[in-house]
């Protein structure tokens, strides 16, 4: 049986993991390759990192960091940040990433999703969308609007429409990242996660707001195929951090969800 997927996500700046709250006030967590290696040893199912200064500085994601992370973890690696064209995608994949996450650039240039999908396959293209809760209006019927550029700019696009469109464009997975919940540790926005999961046929990844294993479980019961966790794993700001093992044990024992046992990650090579 296909198991629930727990994905660790971190923001990287100059090769180091930083943690932001609602896209602001970053604190340093540690060396990216070292953080990834520890999570791998702990049984994480997948790793995503965003080079948060790549886009603002109009450059590619830091390939040395991609390589340093990829050399040490043998689970899928997704990289986001600074992807503007097929050449950038080539470079990131050649450095050892499996998937490319595109967010603001997909809104600016939707053809990029299609081009990447044709060249590398749908499974390579992860459409990440930042969604902001608001009023249901004629143009935003779901009540959730897509934002770009670190949640600073609203696009006037409906999140549900954009999710459907992303699948049509060629995305193989869709990340629903709630701006309102991000960094709150109060749980994912289940309403929009469930709505997108119902609307598309590709896997949907819940993101933003997980603070406890129960939040993670609720994402799966809402229809997500995978859930992104970050603060709850390592944020020094949080009173309680959880290991990957803690999370999976709770998913399995508390909620009856299928997991890849962390014992399999710890077995000798």
């Amino acid at each position, binding site marked *: 049986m296909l198991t629930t997927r727990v994905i660790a996500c971190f923001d990287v700046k100059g090769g180091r993991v930083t943690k932001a709250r609602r896209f602001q006030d970053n604190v340093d967590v540690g060396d990216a390759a070292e953080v990834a290696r520890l999570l791998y040893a702990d049984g994480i*199912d997948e790793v995503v990192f965003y080079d948060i200064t790549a886009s603002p500085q109009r450059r590619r994601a830091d390939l040395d960091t991609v390589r340093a992370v990829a050399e040490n973890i043998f689970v899928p690696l997704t990289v986001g940040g600074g992807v503007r064209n097929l050449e950038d995608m080539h470079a990131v994949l050649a450095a050892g990433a499996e998937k490319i996450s595109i967010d603001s650039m997909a809104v600016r240039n939707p053809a990029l999703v299609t081009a990447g999908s044709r060249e590398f*396959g*749908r*499974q390579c293209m992860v459409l990440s969308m930042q969604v902001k809760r608001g009023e249901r209006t004629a143009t935003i019927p779901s009540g959730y609007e897509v934002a770009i550029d670190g949640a600073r700019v609203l696009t006037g696009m409906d999140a549900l429409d954009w999710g459907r469109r992303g699948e049509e464009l060629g995305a193989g997975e869709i990340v629903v990242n709630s701006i309102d919940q991000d960094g709150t540790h109060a749980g994912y926005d289940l309403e929009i996660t469930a709505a997108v999961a119902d609307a598309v046929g590709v896997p949907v990844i819940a993101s933003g707001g997980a603070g406890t294993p129960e939040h993670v479980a609720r994402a799966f019961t809402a229809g997500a195929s995978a859930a992104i966790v970050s603060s709850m794993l390592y944020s020094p700001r949080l009173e309680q951090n959880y290991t990957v093992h803690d999370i999976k044990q709770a998913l399995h024992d508390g909620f009856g969800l299928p997991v890849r046992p962390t014992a399999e990650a710890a077995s000798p090579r």
Partner: protein
Amino acid sequence: MIGVINYRTGNAQSVLFALHHLELDARLVATPEEADGGDVDRFLLPGVGAADVTMASLAERGWVDHLDVRVRQQGAPFLGVCVGLQVLFEHSAEANTPCLGWLPGMVVRFPRGRLRVPHMGWNAVTRRSTHPFVRGLGPAHFYFVNSYYAIPAEDADVAGVTEYGVEFASVVARGNLMATQFHVEKSGPAGLALLSRFARLDPAELVDEMVG
């Protein structure tokens, strides 16, 4: 020395990282000439992307003929991964692509509708044969990303199975030909163990297996 075939859209680098992590001798080979140096004695075909692009890329670089000699005629151990499994069969429904045809059978798409496609994530593999490649393979989870799956015509070629709406062949093995639908290089310690097993298999044992 394992030659990791490096073609346009494969993820050869990830495979090389995994082999080097295991301290195995491996290098990337982009063309048959690069594999002809004498040290490459087994091949790994990584796979990402579509069957038609993969087949075109292999043909363009002269791999189809080279591998036919080295693998099929001379018996060099071969491991195909993901699309590298699918192209071993006769035909893929993906872009209606004629494939290598080293194994009888075809490749079809998961049914539309109830299932999310691609099949993406960690799924269980159950051993189905006594081929040396899967000897000792316990129940474990491996990382899959596939919209298509192979239906081998010969049951004996099915070395492992996985369930996703249907039960499909996730490992195939016949003599010196081995392949996994999942990404061995991205399947944690369980995947690394299989890679290590492939690297250490005795070709003589594989030939015996083929005869037996």
